[in-house]
């Protein structure tokens, strides 16, 4: 099977979960969507580069699937349970408008993807890969700034990380495994710390709305 035939369904899953994230308001759904996205992305490098560098690629895939598909959702669901926050994210921008902006971002990314020339694109048709990565990155940033609660910002961060990871797939042949593992480790520590911070915010203030964190509490 050619690379394109493997790649396209996974990238479609990636982009569809992006849109679903923009449109869904329940935390539980959002967390599940992010984990689906993580698992789909985890499989990607192993399938693309499996033939040339199988052990390393599969190890990376296994690491990222376990981390993004199991550990992150488990951490986030635990906060959701213990912090007693409202079940629904309260966005600053409405869901329909968010999805429309997502379509705009997708078109912009497509334009960038078709003009950008990357060093490793010779053997792989990567214009869609680059566009999908960029769109996921921008949608993740948008999720981070457009939602009110700390938990959504953690989710937005993970989506941004997924976008960067998609970019990394283009170059995975050239990046040492140590760097890849380091990035995964960083993401893990970041999510871990942010979860603890969100838990403490909720215990201290009885909410995790970040827009109310701009005043000192005496």
């Amino acid at each position, binding site marked *: 099977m050619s690379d394109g*035939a493997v790649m*396209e*369904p996974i990238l*479609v899953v990636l*982009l*569809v979960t992006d*849109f*679903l994230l923009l*449109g869904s308001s329940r935390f539980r759904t959002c967390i599940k969507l992010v984990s689906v996205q993580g698992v789909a992305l985890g499989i990607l490098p192993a399938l693309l580069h499996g033939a040339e560098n199988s052990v390393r690629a599969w190890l990376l895939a296994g690491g990222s699937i376990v981390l993004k598909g199991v550990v992150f959702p488990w951490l986030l669901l635990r906060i959701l349970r213990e912090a007693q926050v409202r079940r629904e994210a309260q966005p600053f921008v409405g*869901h*329909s408008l968010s*999805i*429309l902006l*997502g*379509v705009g971002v*997708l*078109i912009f990314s*497509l334009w960038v993807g078709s003009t950008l020339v990357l060093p490793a694109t010779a053997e792989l048709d990567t*214009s*869609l890969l680059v566009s999908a990565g960029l769109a996921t990155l921008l949608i993740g940033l948008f999720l981070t700034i457009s939602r009110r609660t700390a938990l959504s910002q953690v989710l937005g961060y993970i989506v941004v990380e997924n976008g960067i990871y998609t970019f990394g797939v283009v170059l995975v042949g050239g990046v040492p495994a140590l760097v890849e593992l380091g990035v995964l480790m960083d993401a893990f520590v970041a999510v871990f710390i942010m979860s603890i911070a969100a838990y403490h915010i909720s215990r201290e203030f009885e909410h995790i709305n970040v827009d109310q964190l701009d005043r000192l509490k005496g």
Partner: protein
Amino acid sequence: MDGTAILPPAAALLLAPLLLGVINRTKAFFAGRRGRPLLQLYFDLFKLLRKGATYSRTTTWVFRAGPIVGLAAVLAALVLVPLGAVGAPLAFGGDLLVFAYLLCLMRFFTVLAALDTGSSFEGMGASREVLFAALAEPALFLGLAAVAHQSGSLSLSAMIAAIDPATWVSRGPALGLVATALGIVLLAENSRLPVDDPETHLELTMIHEVMVLDYGGPDLAFVLYGAALKLWVLAALLVGLIVPVRTGRPLLDAAAGLAGMLSAAVAIGAVESSRARLRLVRVPKLLVGAMALSALALVLVLR
């Protein structure tokens, strides 16, 4: 034009009310009931056609024209829609626009007639119908544009006929996205369950049903038959997309298409049984989501 082209419209005219019967029987099966007879809508139509009509004194000719123009528009749309690989009697470049706007014409007159009664409930239904239709239209057009670009033709018959199993292998994700988006449009346009509940007569939640409250007799028969035909044409588009049986023998293709239509009815019934109706404020989100899927499909095809 060969004789087989008469098959799709003839099948639609005869079997469209059966589709609603199948949907209702599926819903009854899920609910553990026996359900009404499969041919109930035929009985209803015959009963209504034999009755006289009553018109309110506040209405004008617009109210009386509503069902007639609506039925005429959907009948005209019928001759453009193929059934699987069997082409429609009339096919020309750009007929997908004519098709979409004939359905719009039908809706436009239904809405005008509803406003003509001066009832506040019907006005509410009309406003909702127009809002949701405006949101469903981009999804329909972007989806059709993706299929048109894939097949290199702007005619519905040629577009649908160009989709074969090989297309599904090479363009599976894009076609799947278009099929999902068209499925959502199908449910929204025909007032099926996640968007509107066809069973209820509670005015506060209704969309399509509330607009036709004032009709009776032959007019109501026209409205019901028109709605059944509209469901048929949109379902035929969807079935043409997802049932890629292209044997080249018209009768076999038509049989596959009909089987596809019946499975589509069962699928609609299953969706309606398993989903609750969305709150009205959530419906735009669903339709915008369908539009996003269509846009993504178009992007994949254009690339």
